[in-house]
């Protein structure tokens, strides 16, 4: 009787010790956040020269397609606008067309001016690189000879919701 009591006690204590020494825990609190992110970039510095025409037609338009743009947004329905800092010479039109990333909508070929215009809309929570960006320069005969000039095209992404 006494011996079995002793064994029981030993057994219980060994089991208890095994359970309680099996692990030790400690905790850390990790605080985190993801803020609104809207980033756009472009590549290319195109040069467009109009120097020919088909007789009887307006001067031949030129395009520059060796450009691209990239975007990252973690918001919904973000959009991109384009603007130039000063008006184009009379009779000249500079236009741009941006390929839309998946799920978004391109405004198509759109003339650039000193008023910001939407070029892509509905960009939602994505990152997409090396999308197409093409510039077109049109001129009327009335524009005459226009000396070399530059325009900086500024693209702005605005976060949605």
């Amino acid at each position, binding site marked *: *009787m*006494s*011996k079995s*009591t*002793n064994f029981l*006690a*030993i057994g219980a*204590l*060994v089991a*208890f*010790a095994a359970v*309680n*020494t*099996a*692990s*030790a*825990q*400690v*905790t*850390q*609190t*990790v*605080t*985190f*956040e*993801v*803020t*609104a*992110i809207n*980033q*756009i*970039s472009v590549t290319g510095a195109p040069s467009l020269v109009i120097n020919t025409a088909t007789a009887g037609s307006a001067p031949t338009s030129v395009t520059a397609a060796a450009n691209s*743009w*990239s*975007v*990252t*947004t*973690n*918001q*919904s329905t973000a959009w991109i606008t384009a603007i130039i800092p000063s008006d184009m010479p009379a009779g000249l039109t500079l236009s741009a067309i941006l390929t839309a990333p998946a799920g978004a909508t391109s405004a198509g070929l759109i003339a650039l001016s000193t008023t910001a215009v939407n070029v892509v809309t509905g960009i939602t*929570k*994505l*990152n*997409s*690189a*090396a999308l197409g960006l093409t510039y077109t320069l049109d001129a009327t005969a009335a524009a005459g000879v226009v000396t070399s000039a530059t325009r900086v095209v500024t693209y702005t992404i605005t976060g949605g919701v």
Partner: protein
Amino acid sequence: MNASASAVRRIWRTVAVAGLAFGAREARAQVSVSGSPAAMKVTMAVAGSAPAAVSDALTTYSSATNPAPGHFSITASINSPMPAGVTLTITLAASQGSSAGAVTLSTVAQNVVTGIAKKMNNGQTITYNLSATAAAGVVPLQTRQVTLTQISTP
């Protein structure tokens, strides 16, 4: 001394011995951390790429383990799942045993260090990495409790 008194004495002796053994084992099975990491915020991206991940490697852990016999491992888990598209990994440096490298934290405990057979140097670096996909959207400030558990292994 009758048989009953003798039995009681043996029981108390057993309790004392087992208690000492328990205390000794308990002292060996200690893991501590230097504190909690500063808030981690994903705020930037290179256009065209996923948001840039952020890291924190400013906290440390220490293990008082002096395993004999057998080995110890350390597992890590969090108290609730991360938001969709957000990933938190943990890497524990290990002067003893083998670090599992970057382990994605979930509510299921996973080994982060295994095969600890000797006492680990104090102040081993804990590295957290927070990453998010664009699809994760904006994630408001929140917390997760990361639990490090030291367990004995055969």
